[in-house]
């Protein structure tokens, strides 16, 4: 029996109005895999994420999440999401924000306390949970957003620029937790990033430039293909290739 992939994107085309933002995107993500989407801002990374979540209907092609075609509202219960901008209720405390989003996500009453402690622990926010979010620093808000994504223990995590504004030490800790989730729980993770160091941590890379995937594969494989020793060099070389065509 073959294991169904968590996310399966085939021949996706996506756009707003007249504008085409993404074309010919193919992507497969299995249980326990970490996928990093890298590319300059405006390349279409966030649009791809929005489409996978079912916020936008695919213009052409197909997107399957847990073998179900998106958009499907109920699929969202199985996706933990961290947005690019911190979308938090400033007058509520950290704990109240967590509880609110957990309820929205469908976390039951019995698990609430356990999940809250777990999520706050991952991001080192236990001591600040009773403070209103308006007193938080930028990094703390980022961490709270991540905790919100983790709170329902979702089998698919989608993180839009998760490491911006997070110090190296905490970044290390977060990556350890993401690897642990992928390895132990089989959580599939999609994240977007500008940071090449984050890209090195992923199992699969997808480089997006001007709305198309210019390179796709594991970090080692990509480095071998382009005969370089850094992800950054792969990206630059692939970009030159795209311009040449």
């Amino acid at each position: 029996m073959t294991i169904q992939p968590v996310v399966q994107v085939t021949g996706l085309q996506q756009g707003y109005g007249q504008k085409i933002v993404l074309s010919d995107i193919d992507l497969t993500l299995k249980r326990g895999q970490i996928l990093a989407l890298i590319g300059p801002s405006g390349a279409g990374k966030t649009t791809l994420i929005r489409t996978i979540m079912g916020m936008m209907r695919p213009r052409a092609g197909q997107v399957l999440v847990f073998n179900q075609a998106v958009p499907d509202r109920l699929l969202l219960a199985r996706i933990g999401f961290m947005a690019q901008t911190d979308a938090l209720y400033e007058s509520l405390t950290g704990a109240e924000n967590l509880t609110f989003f957990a309820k929205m996500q469908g976390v039951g009453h019995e698990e609430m306390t356990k999940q809250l402690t777990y999520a706050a622990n991952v991001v080192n926010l236990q001591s600040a949970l009773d403070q209103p979010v308006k007193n938080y620093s930028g990094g703390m808000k980022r961490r709270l957003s991540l905790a919100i994504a983790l709170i329902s223990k979702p089998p698919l995590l989608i993180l839009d620029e998760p490491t911006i504004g997070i110090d190296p030490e905490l970044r290390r800790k977060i990556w350890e937790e993401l690897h642990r989730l992928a390895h132990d729980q089989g959580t599939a993770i999609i994240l977007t990033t500008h940071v090449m160091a984050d890209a090195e941590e992923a199992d699969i890379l997808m480089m997006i430039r001007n709305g198309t995937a210019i390179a796709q594969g594991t970090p080692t494989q990509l480095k071998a293909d382009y005969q370089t020793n850094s992800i950054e060099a792969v990206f630059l070389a692939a970009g030159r290739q795209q311009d040449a065509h």
Partner: protein
Amino acid sequence: MRINAMISRIFKEMIRDKRTLALMFIAPLFIMTLIFFLFQSNTNTKVDLGVRGVATPIVKALDTDRIRIHHVGHEKPTTLIKNRDYAGVLTQKGDKLTLLLANADQSQSAIVKQTLQAATIKLKMQAAATAIKTQAAALQKLASALKQASHGAAQVSPPQPSSATASYQITTHYRYGSANSTYFDTLLPILIGFIVFFFVFLISGIALLRERTTGTLYRLLATPVRRGEIIGGYLLGYGIFALVQTILIVGYTLLVFKIEILGNIGAIFLINLLLALTALSLGLLISTFANTEFQMLQFIPLVVIPQIFFTGLIPVNQMLGWLQPIARLMPLYYGANALTGIITKGQSLSVLYPDIIALLGFFLLFLSLNLITMRQYRQV
């Protein structure tokens, strides 16, 4: 369960926002008190009238309860009005009276005209009474002369002079309100409706707008919540605040202004709840067309202020013909009409059902438009 979480979140946010709480619960009471006192004093105002060369009986006939008489010299009436701020100047030449009105304030002009008219009637009645009296005396003389002339002839009853001078006494009864009713009594139901409509519109609209600009709406839609649950949470959460506001306003009206509410208080709550729901759904809808709080405020002159004119402040059935149908497009027209009916006329909901249907219609229209516009954020 999700809707409960929405409501409790809205409550927490509201309760921690002391300014908004004050705006919603204290500001209306302040405004109502101010308006109450504004309309208290205007019954005792006296109007200044300059008088020159006018015969004493006429001046005496003028009602000095409402007019302050100034005997003036030979200045020109226009100058008098300009320099002394008189409401009018009355002059007499021969048997001709001339009244010059300032007419800067039409209500003052009206007082002068009424007083002068009353004085003229009074003088005419006096003249008539004197004439009748002399006639009666003459008749009586004639009658006695006749009596003496034809002794034993048929009795001629002398005319009763009293019957000719009989003065009519008018007793006024008030179906609604009392002799002490001021314009405030007319204004109060409109005010109650307007306050609920305006504050709920503004606060809920800005709340959803903020939710959109901070990205929490988008984040919320990344959970399996239904769009209807978000709108429903807003409607219930702010609807409860609107009800508390109504309780406060109505309680204040009863206890402080001692204004009698003829109809059912429950009916007031029902109409106000409907008004609040309409305002809420309209506020949420309008907020999708604004990108900042300032842009939300820019909708007030467009959406809220025109409605005030059609609430009954200016009687709608006296408006220009083509203007009257416009009133029917305004939710506040129906709300104010129903509240006036309940508070000052004691009408029951069975009379006011067209207003209720209209408000419900507006609410459902705005609600469905909201559900459609929210599709742009998430397509399921």
